């Protein structure tokens, strides 16, 4: 019984993903975009391009989870290229986030302290 439910669910998911794949292809009407053409030119093209509809949803959700306003997130994903979407989808948490002065100060202060520590001026780190 339980198994049947799971299979039904799986079938539904598969059907949905097949439908979205079909839409992606017909919408494209077969003209190869310049982005793909450059990949092909460099002979590193993957036939199966990322499903940009799903990728956009995924990146949008990740942005919202990181505190971006949902409406703003929707606007933001609209101007990402496929390559950028893929990068964000996979590495949102590890990509460097160019940031602020506070961190910078922390970094510099820390380095100064370390140098002072090395030359024996301070003795601060033993207390950690």
């Amino acid at each position, binding site marked *: 019984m339980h198994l049947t439910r799971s299979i039904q669910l799986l079938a539904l998911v598969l059907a949905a993903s097949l439908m979205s794949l079909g839409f992606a*292809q*017909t919408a494209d*009407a*077969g*003209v*190869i*975009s*310049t*982005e*793909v*053409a*450059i990949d*092909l*030119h460099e*002979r590193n*093209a*993957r*036939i199966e391009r990322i499903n940009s509809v799903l990728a956009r949803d995924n990146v949008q959700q990740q*942005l919202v*989870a*990181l*505190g*971006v*306003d949902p409406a*703003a997130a929707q*606007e*933001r*994903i*609209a*101007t*990402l*290229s*496929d*390559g*950028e*979407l893929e*990068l*964000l989808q996979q590495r*949102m948490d590890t*990509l*460097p*986030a*160019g*940031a*602020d*002065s*506070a*961190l*910078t100060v*922390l*970094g*510099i202060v*820390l*380095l100064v302290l*370390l*140098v002072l*520590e*090395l030359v024996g001026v301070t003795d601060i*780190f033993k207390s*950690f």
Partner: protein
Amino acid sequence: MLGKTIRVVVALLPAGLLCGCAADPFGAPDLHDYQSTIELADTPFFPQEDYQCGPAALATVLVDSGIDVDATELIPKVYVPARQGSLQPEMLAASRAYERIPYVIAPEFAALVAEVTAGRPVLVLQNLGVAAVPAWHYAVVIGYSAAAGEVILRSGTERRRVTRAKVFARTWQRSDNWGMIALRPGELPASTEPERYLRAVAAVESIGRFDLAAPAYEAAVSRWPDSRLAYLGLGNAAWGMQKPADAERWYRQALEVEPDDGTTLNNLAIVIAAQGRCDEADALMQHAIDLTSGYEAMREILQRSRQEMQNCMSQ
């Protein structure tokens, strides 16, 4: 935890200091290769508030390229609250939203100098800290002094930050020398690499802004008249703007450069079919499939296109 991080840093530090003694350890630029001093003093400045060097640096290059925007307006477009910063792909995407073509420069000091020399400030990502204690930071390079060995930046709250070239090279190197400029559609970078530029334009095409991509491809065609990809791009932009006859003309130009290119033949066949010339399109597609027999990825695409084109016949 903090103690451990610090121990790691302490362990790494002597290695860093030792490297500092070796000749040119970080690929630090020899500014004597370059002429005199350049400073783009008119570059606007947006003092950064907490965490917001991304919006500030982006506003700097966008305003410099003629867009009316300020840093505050860009915060909801590139700032990621939980990361307390901005991500590189989003800096590029936001530039597109303001009808600019973001171009990632070649990851070398010479490319940076070339753009500044051409009058374009370069937005760079730096790590002002070290790998173990990163301090990622966006700033804008507006010039350098060869004699003094210095790089001049708009950075954080400093309108004119002067950094020793060697130190700048190290902080920049930690981001793999990432830098971008914001090009007006039709404006070319100082670079001599057509593919790097065409990639930047292709990204604009891929988000459906064919109106911005078209003049950018036109500029590429005038600088690189032998670039098949530039003509293909013009064709794609025309097709995107529902101008199949124009697209056909550009694809045919691309074929003059590279008669056997599968991508161009594929696109040409499709725009010909769209104009109702089904037999001609089908023959062309078959010709393309025959030509690319040794290249499976291309062949599969072509066969799929040919199947889709069957509709042409039945209409």
